[in-house]
């Protein structure tokens, strides 16, 4: 079976019902895409299929033969980062980092289809991606920043207080 991943054609020989996630991680040895739930509930495994965000943990590999698949390894590099990846670093978004590939892939699909999403659009696109570390406010802010919009209402605010005792 042939897969088109990040613009490169790859030959894989997994059982046809194997979820795309495991083919990407094990056979193609691209471990940026993560396993979180296996039920389409967390978004850690998000990749693009013909430009749309999908959950690779519930996508049988046979169903994507011939389609164009993009993973986190394919949207930008340290030298040529995706605008989201620059914003992610600028705002110190990641904590443990485990969910972040999936978050970035959902956000990248959103911006590709809608370059200046409003808050509702962002919420709708990102609600399928869980973050146990609670980086949502920064993810929201980074999407706003990467799409050249005014600061997010969820952005981190910090003030200082003089000790009184």
């Amino acid at each position, binding site marked *: 079976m042939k897969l088109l991943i990040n613009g490169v054609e790859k030959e894989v020989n997994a059982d046809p019902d194997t979820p795309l996630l495991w083919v990407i991680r094990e056979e193609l040895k691209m471990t940026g895409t993560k396993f979180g739930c296996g039920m389409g509930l*967390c978004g850690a495994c998000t990749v693009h299929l013909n430009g749309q965000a999908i959950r690779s943990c519930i996508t049988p590999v046979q169903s994507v033969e011939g389609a164009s698949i993009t993973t986190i390894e394919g949207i930008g590099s340290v030298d040529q980062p995706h605008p989201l990846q620059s914003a992610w670093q600028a705002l110190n978004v990641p904590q443990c980092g485990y969910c972040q590939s999936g978050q970035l892939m959902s956000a990248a699909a959103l911006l590709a289809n809608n370059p200046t999403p409003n808050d509702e659009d962002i919420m709708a696109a990102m609600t399928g991606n869980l973050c*146990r*570390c609670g980086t949502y406010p920064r993810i929201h802010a980074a999407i706003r920043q990467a799409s050249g919009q005014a600061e997010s209402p969820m952005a981190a605010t910090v003030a200082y207080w003089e000790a009184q005792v």
Partner: protein
Amino acid sequence: MSQQDNGQCLSRRDFFKVSATTGGALLIAVQLPGCASLPAGQAENALRPNAWLEVTPDNQVILTLDRVEMGQGTMTGMATLLGEELHVSPDRIKVVFAPVAEDYRQPDYGLQITGGSTSISSNWVRLREAGAAGRMMIEAAAAQLWQVPVTRVQAIDGVCQVAGNAAVLSYGELASLAALQRVPSSPALTAPENYRYIGKQSKRLDAQAKSFGQARFGIDVQLPGMRYAVLSRPPVAGGKVKRVDRARAQAAPGVVKVIETACGVAVVAEQYWQARKAQRLLDIEWDHGELAQISTDQVFDCYARALNDGASDVRDEGDFEAARVTADRTLKVEYRAPFLAHATLEPQNCTVHITKDKCEIWAPTQGPDIARAVARRETGFSSDQIQVHTTYIGGGFGRRLTQDFVAEAVAIARHLDTPVKLIWSREEDTRHDHYRPASLHRLEATFNAEGKVTGWRHDIAAPRILDHFVGDAAGAVAPGWTPQPMVRLAAGLAKLTQPDPSPVEGAQDLPYEIANLNVRYAKADAGIPISYWRSVGHSTNGFVTESFVDELAHAEGKDPVAYRLALLPATSRLRTVLIAATETAGWRQSLSEGRFQGVACHKSFGSYAAQVIEVSVVDGDIKIHRVVCAIDCGQVVNPDLVVAQMQSGIIFGLSAALYGNITHKEGQVEQSNFHDQPILRMPQTPRIEVVIVKSQISPTGVGEPGVPPVAPALANALFSATGQRLRSLPLVLA
């Protein structure tokens, strides 16, 4: 970090002898931790003044991180401490994860664990001294080379210079000469007003790798010839296999082996998915063991019985019984908290390769030395035959202090001659967790004729986490030669003799001045596996005490903030955070229509936190709009990381307060995945504002203290909004 296996383990004294005869660069080898061999790639002429710092001749500055990075930002924080005194920007420091060695133990626990929000506090002096010692040796080397008094050498941004002299040498160029200098014993540290990196905003060192999918977590470990394992565990904790028919699974495509271990039945295959598919073909009959019938109701019955049988004092001031006799009125209520799962987004996993005389482990573990002890028990190998590599960790929250996933993987790997990676499914991760303990609380307050509170009694029934943890931990604390029966004996003894603050922390140290104060504890353990969970006992006791004090305020007809301030001692640092949070939030001032606020404050892990939560309730739906959090964690090392940890703790706390509930029926956990055990999603996340109290007191915890005030502040807000006092978690409106 990989290490050469030189097949021998020198004691410290041996090392000293070797160095004395070979001299020169090796002198520094005496400082190598424990019996660690020289890590591969380490330059012979590098400066290694202690177990943490290395400066190589090619000008790399390397920090060996003795805590694990699981999102809390310890990597960045530690590099900041080292860099401050070394006079090197933290982002120039390369961080490697430490092997198991005595020098890397957390000094208060005597274990090499990451927990208790102690990474910064326990390394506050030690890492800055490590950096200062290195810098002083580099300065001494420059002085020797240039034949000037050392006081004239300036070390700035990784280079040395003498004023008025054009010559500049990098730390790397000076490293081999620096290695020959005396290691200073207690170097002077920078005064706070001169900090260049501490307390300043800085980048997370791991942000880049984690924004490109390049951080390698435990689950990402790949080794040549590696197989994949899945494990069918007893559905009821403490159960075991009665009978298994493995024929169909064994015959499935890709299956390498079906293995029966003490932990269950493992299927090992060429690919993960093949193992999962074959697992469904296993036919196993289980012996469910003693917990076969246990239900959540029975757990709480067990707790209630323990309280009825009598609890023992953990704090007793004044005379509560007398206060009750003379009371005009009393308020007596019951609170409860459920078992909670950790739900780290990276499911438990572990990769192991066992050869004839060596066991190598790659694990996302919060306790690599306990992992090694567990492997010693499973294999019979000695400590120096076992090597533990830690990885980036996809969320810890205490889950990975328990080494069950390591024990399982080692047990499986013993039957294979290839490396094997064990991966848990989300369902397995939810059902076979070691949970935040459930607990039952009875509270009673007494009031005098003027309506003022005169007495507080808090009775707690809960299990002790230590009893569940000590079995594995004892192996890590005991010297390497200790036979397993003695380790078991020591663990058993610890259960009887060692105090465990976990069930009473945050209740025993109630900050309010009430004349007759009695906190009592009754040990009650229904046998459900439990462990540490972000903020541990504070997560339940914070909820109970801060809800109950709110009840008292309302009972006395007082404002909850003014009421707390009146009861807090004049010197309490809680006062400042309470004032900071409520003033920032505009406590009870001109709220929009339908909005209500609740407040709570709590001290944990040495830090003081207060939160104001703003909610609305429409048709029974709870919407959380805003959380203001004030934190006093002493000297701030990295303000943005403090903000991140407050955001993280608050969202974690909201997930627990709104949804967290692990229940049991006929011995089995009823929840399985994120649909029936949800956590907060982005649209439910409120706006979060953080206020940091300025301080130069030694730093204290930030990873956990943001959690305890969340549930009570929310419950108190819901009381304001609906008049319903919710005394049981998760918070569900009637």
